[in-house]
């Protein structure tokens, strides 16, 4: 049956190139499926044969251990065969163009590409040169839809609903592909997003992402927030840092034990990882009762299993024999 023409599919997509392609209903479908895949990850034998014989290529043209590991586990637990491309030994380093790399891998008959690159729009280019499904695993400063989905899943499990939920995102918004996906998704699901950062860390038009409020003052924003999402400070690029020092950043924007009394009792703290302890979070908050950072990591595997399953097979509304 022609997949694209199947009206019965509960998730009618070939690729996930950006979170904007998903309706609120689609997002909830992924989250509901992730919930069912949680059980598989709790078993002694954490593997189901659902996607036996499907080949997934993890095309990571930018180094990433966490996201790639999470994807690989998700693929393997669905019984996919996986091949990893990219990295320092790849042909792209030897000067091969992206298009040639895709054509080469596509010739090996791959069913799905997971694409990570430091340049925006790469997953779209990949999708133009293959019939395989494509998932954006982070493209430049553009989007990181699966990170957003796992964040949403974590928040949903803790809070039950997004409607009217007050979410604050703190830190380097302008360089954050997570924000590129998470802010529009939260807005779509009815949450109210506040971006908290100095202007040096904000994009030109935060409102187009779906942010309801923008403020430079963490202490003023904190008491209202149900979810505090701390972004990572890129320690690699401090010479062009948008703040004077780590010390001052920590003073103004660090989530510390001293700031805990400002927070709602039931507020949760998210962070995409890896954490810089003592910069955006102190250890007390990173490991404390508000923190759901390790839940996010677990959510990542469940959400990615759900997404790969939905894209590679698609789920039908009805049951067949």
């Amino acid at each position, binding site marked *: 049956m022609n997949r694209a023409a199947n009206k019965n599919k509960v998730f009618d997509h070939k690729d996930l190139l950006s979170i904007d392609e998903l309706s609120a209903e689609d997002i909830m479908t992924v989250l509901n499926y992730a919930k069912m895949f949680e*059980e598989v990850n709790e078993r002694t034998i954490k593997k189901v044969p659902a996607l036996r014989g499907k080949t997934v290529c993890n095309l990571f043209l930018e180094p990433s251990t966490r996201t790639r590991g999470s994807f690989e586990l998700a693929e393997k637990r669905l019984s996919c065969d996986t091949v990893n491309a990219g990295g320092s030994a790849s042909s792209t380093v030897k000067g091969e163009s992206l298009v040639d790399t895709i054509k080469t891998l596509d010739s090996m008959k791959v069913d799905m590409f997971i694409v990570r690159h430091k340049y925006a729009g790469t997953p779209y280019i990949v999708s133009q040169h293959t019939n395989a499904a494509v998932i954006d695993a982070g493209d430049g400063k553009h989007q990181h839809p699966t990170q957003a989905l796992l964040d949403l899943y974590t928040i949903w499990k803790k809070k039950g609903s997004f409607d009217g939920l007050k979410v604050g995102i703190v830190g380097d918004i302008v360089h954050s592909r997570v924000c590129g996906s998470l802010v529009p998704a939260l807005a779509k699901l009815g949450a109210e997003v506040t971006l908290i950062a100095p202007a040096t860390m904000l994009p030109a038009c935060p409102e187009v992402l779906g942010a309801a409020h923008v403020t430079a003052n963490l202490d003023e924003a904190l008491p209202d927030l149900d979810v505090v999402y701390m972004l990572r400070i890129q320690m690699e690029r401090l010479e062009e840092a948008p703040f004077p020092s780590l010390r001052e950043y920590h003073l103004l924007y660090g989530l510390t034990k001293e700031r805990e009394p400002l927070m709602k009792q039931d507020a949760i703290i998210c962070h995409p990882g890896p954490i810089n302890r003592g910069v955006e979070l102190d250890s007390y908050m990173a490991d404390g009762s508000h923190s759901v950072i390790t839940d996010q990591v677990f959510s990542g595997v469940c959400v990615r299993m759900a997404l790969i399953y939905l894209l590679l097979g698609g789920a039908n509304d009805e049951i067949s024999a």
Partner: protein
Amino acid sequence: MQRSESDQACVMDENEIDRTLVRMAHQILEQNKGGENLALVGILTRGDILARKLAEIIYQIEGIHVPVGSLDISLYRDDTCIMNFPQLRGTDILFNIDNKTIVLVDDVLFTGRTIRAALDALMDFGRPARIQLAILVDRGHRELPIRADFVGKNVPSAANENVRLHLKDVDGYSSVTITRINPGERIGSAPIGGDHE
């Protein structure tokens, strides 16, 4: 029992289904010499409801609660590449199946492929002492060497016929019907909530 070409024929009504389940519960207990170390696992969808009904009857007979689980075999199907994926409903087995006698429960036994998938799925949960199969209706046409230990009723059917169970709990009425398959129609369980085709 009259069967015209397009008409659906009722092969079991509510009373017969209930009486059959009581008989099957007795058979299960007899075969296993009581309810000790027994657990029921129903295959989604409707097998799980039958399993709960059987457990209830076993409680009435023996006064013991046997654990009941439900199994979604979607992730174990062998036809995922050619068919559309069924919607996931989730597996729910909240007890340890190791060294237990597991009675798999399903509504209709047909090709045997569902049971094959269910066996694979169960094995991923642990190592049961033995697995038995309880089926309300066996309609024949096996494609795999699988047979049921407990059969409610044998209903001979043609390949182009559909045998479906409806249950009051989810469909509003209980019956087993046999219908001719219209072009484009699926074989297999009816959608939950009644067959309105």
